[in-house]
């Protein structure tokens, strides 16, 4: 019963707000227009005061019903009480009513705002404005300036799990502030508790709520993203909602394999899993948007380099001439670039490549590279794949190739390498897989081709 009265609070609060604001407006109208409406004002003030008191009482009951954290609404509570008192004073002291009415208006505004935050979450008032703007920009039919692109990206939040106990550090605080009021020792709505690992693993009346590694299967996550008016949406409609970042944290945590972070074995398991599920901790600092844009503007095709995180592969197919401007445009990417593709180009100067210290793969097939260039390439400490097919590389280049410590794969089909040279290379570097490209089919055994009868 008491709970029920408490539940009337969201309904009741509208009366004091409406009535008292009207009363205040009339007080000022009367003062400015010099008309006599005091009797109506008094009635409004009386009604408004009663409504304010009722609202305060119901609010108090609601705060005790256990659906809200203790202390959560303290400020709201005191401002509410203050508002009621202010209304009473106003009713009795007509003499100062102009001043008091201003105070009352402010009190109403503050109380209402605090109440709103309780229900809809803090900063809902401003948050919507902020996050809206980039989307408005987006809805222009095209985005064609760098400016907008950058703005758009900065509006994006990246969620990365911090520390080695993401459950305690990131997930639990969210559950505590948004779920405990109904799913903990206080209450067990849906026969579910979320306050300890054991309970979370146990699940609720519908069974398991957590399937490690699979957020969409886990009610712990999937219920959060149902439409708010869905009966199963959590937290239920009208309650303080999770923001998208918090939802993402829960999702990522489940994707990681939902580690609770006690046993070492478990955390190891979780890391192994997370290696598959999430972006790796970057060994390479990701390229900045500006740097990528700069290179893209020159017409360079950029794509992620396979099996790397943060590594890039550059392809110059669309570049007409490899002039300094082009290399200039890639200068901010030097750390990230792991592959450069310059197939068939006749205007390569290998010196330009030496700034890319992390290069692992170089495609110079059918290009103008010469033996002398290979020595320069020897300065790239990580070069592991080198494609030199169809180039003028001859036996003179062998020494430089042998010296490339990291080299693993070498394509030399149709180069000028002699048989002896090749043999020498193979003996010197048995660890390199050399693709000679000498391939010929053996003619099929025509006898076998006849159908078996």
């Amino acid at each position, binding site marked *: 019963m008491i709970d029920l009265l408490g539940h009337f609070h969201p309904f009741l609060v509208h009366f004091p707000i409406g009535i008292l604001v009207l009363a205040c407006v009339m007080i000022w109208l009367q003062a400015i227009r010099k008309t006599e409406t005091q009797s109506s004002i008094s009635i409004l003030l009386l009604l408004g005061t009663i409504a304010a008191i009722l609202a305060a009482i119901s609010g108090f009951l609601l705060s005790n019903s256990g659906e809200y954290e203790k202390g959560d609404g303290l400020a709201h509570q005191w401002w509410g009480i203050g508002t009621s008192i202010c209304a009473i004073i106003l009713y009795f002291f007509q003499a100062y009513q102009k001043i008091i009415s201003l105070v009352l208006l402010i009190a109403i505004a503050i109380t209402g705002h605090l109440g*709103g935050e309780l229900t*809809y979450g803090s900063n*809902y008032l401003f*948050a*919507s404005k902020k996050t*809206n703007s980039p989307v408005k920009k*987006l809805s222009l*039919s*095209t*985005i*064609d300036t*760098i400016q907008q*692109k950058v703005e758009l*990206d900065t509006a*994006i939040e990246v*969620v990365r799990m911090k520390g080695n106990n993401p459950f305690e550090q990131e997930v639990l605080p969210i559950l505590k502030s948004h779920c405990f009021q109904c799913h903990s020792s206080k209450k067990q709505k849906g026969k579910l508790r979320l306050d300890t690992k054991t309970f979370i693993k146990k699940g609720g009346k519908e069974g398991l709520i957590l399937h490690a590694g699979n957020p*969409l299967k886990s009610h712990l996550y*999937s219920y959060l*993203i149902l439409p*708010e*008016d869905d009966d199963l949406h959590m937290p239920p409609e009208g309650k303080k*909602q999770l923001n*998208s970042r918090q939802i993402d944290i829960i999702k990522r945590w489940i994707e990681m394999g939902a580690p609770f972070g006690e046993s070492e074995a478990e955390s190891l398991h979780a890391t192994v899993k997370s290696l598959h599920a999430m*972006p790796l901790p970057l060994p390479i600092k990701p390229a900045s*948007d500006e740097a*990528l*844009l700069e290179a*893209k*503007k020159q*017409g360079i*095709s*950029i*794509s*992620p380099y*396979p099996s*790397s*995180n943060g590594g*890039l592969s550059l*392809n110059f*197919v*669309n570049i007409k001439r490899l002039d300094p401007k082009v290399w200039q445009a890639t200068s901010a990417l030097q750390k990230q670039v792991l592959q450069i593709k310059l*197939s068939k180009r006749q205007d390569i100067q290998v010196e330009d490549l030496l700034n890319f210290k992390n290069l692992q793969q170089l*495609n110079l*097939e059918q290009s103008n590279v010469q033996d002398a260039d290979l020595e320069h390439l020897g300065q790239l400490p990580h070069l592991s*794949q080198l494609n030199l*097919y169809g180039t003028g590389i001859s036996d003179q280049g062998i020494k430089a190739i042998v010296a490339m410590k990291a080299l693993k*794969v070498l*394509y030399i*089909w149709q180069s000028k390498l002699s048989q002896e040279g090749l043999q020498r290379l193979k003996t010197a570097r048995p660890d390199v897989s050399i*693709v000679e*490209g000498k*391939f010929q*089919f*053996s003619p*099929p*055994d025509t006898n*076998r*081709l006849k*159908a078996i*009868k």
Partner: protein
Amino acid sequence: MGHQHTDPFRLSHPDLEKLNWGLDRRDFLKKTAMGFGAIALNGLLASHQAQGQSLEQQIMSALPRIAPKAKRVVYLFMSGGPSQFETWDYKPELTKRMGQDLPDSIRKGQRLTGMSANQAILPVAASAYGFRQYGQSQTWVSDLLPYTAQVVDELCVIKSMFTEQINHDPAITFFQTGHQLPGRPSIGSWLSYGLGSENQNLPAFIVMVSKDASKDQPLYARLWGNGFLPSEHQGVQFRSSKDPVLFLSNPEGYDGKDRQEMLEYLKQLNQLQNESWGDPEVDARIAQYEMAFKMQTSVPEVMDVSDEPQEVFDLYGPNSRDKGSFAANCLLARKLLEKDVRFVQLYHQGWDHHDSLPKNIVNQCKQTDQATAALIMDLKRRGMLEDTLVIWGGEFGRTVYSQGKLSPTGYGRDHHPKCFSMWMAGAGVKAGTTFGQTDDFSYNIVKDPVHVHDFQATLLHLMGIDHEQLVYKYQGRRFRLTDVHGKLVKGILA
């Protein structure tokens, strides 16, 4: 106080959309920051084509990338449904059962096509051709594929493919678009849409149809159509005729000197139109004009094989000089892949062997075997196999029993959707392996079934796309290549 949200995107939370088989803009943006997509987005923004790209597409291009193993795909589509019995699925047990009625325990009441449903008996037909093991992988390969057998260590043979469709048109449509009814985008269109073109002078999706195949089952342009995606993503068919791409060259009597200027004005007009209508197809139109203009020079160049040494023609086989043949198309495919075209699709018809299979399949294999193997080796020696995915396969398999009379010299095989073989090679797949297994009759799958949607999901994965995230909203519904299905076939990934 009405319905307020903490977060204005609350109702369109990404995974809610995912649950509804979709994904919204917000999600792309998020993923952009987490993943790698920003790059592609950047590209589209900055390239001169920026105006030609619709907003959706720009954001689409910001798809999260699973580090892509494959940069390009060449898909050799064996249209008609090649028999698995005479190619990849060796069933030695069948010789003993030759002519016996297919046991009910195997057929399990499966519905047959009208072509064989009324047969009094369903006589088991063993392959007329022998098999041998090849390569280090010791994979069993039919004697009909002596060349592919020599590159078998590069292949990952999937013996446990299955589809839901038993007739050609729905089955091939299903394979190409993820749905049996026409109207959805083809795989290549999805890729073009998701990843854009790497080479700005060539379309991302190019199609060639062998002229030397017997045209037993028709192919239609909608198989490489863009469906509801913007039309610049449709596959562009290259032909063997004087005009490789229809209507690309300048009309007679026009020297084309002021073409670029004309297109520039046209573009301005189109942009005016776009401003007042906001129709994404106007963007598509602009993009297509620009692409066509660039193709006026890029296409003749890439179609010109006169520079290729004799050795290359020898490799691809005797037909490779015959323009429009499968072998010549394979050679062209390699040239296109060298130019960084993302998706090259070849079709070779004529595999629909309802009767006289032993006789007809010989020719089919002859036309395709050597060039297929050559393509693989040619890519390999150029260092391209490591980031190119090669796919071989048809729309379904064939029955173990003979359609029509089984005679010592001949038999036919009806359509069989419940199991068939295909293979993949190159980027990101386990070379020299066999995946999945069928029963002794190659009638049912006994291990590791791979549904068409699983295959598609895996293909996208290799190209760096999560198939659940490549989504296009059309007429109020969110569409994916894999519809609401598809799981990654992890067992074939290297």
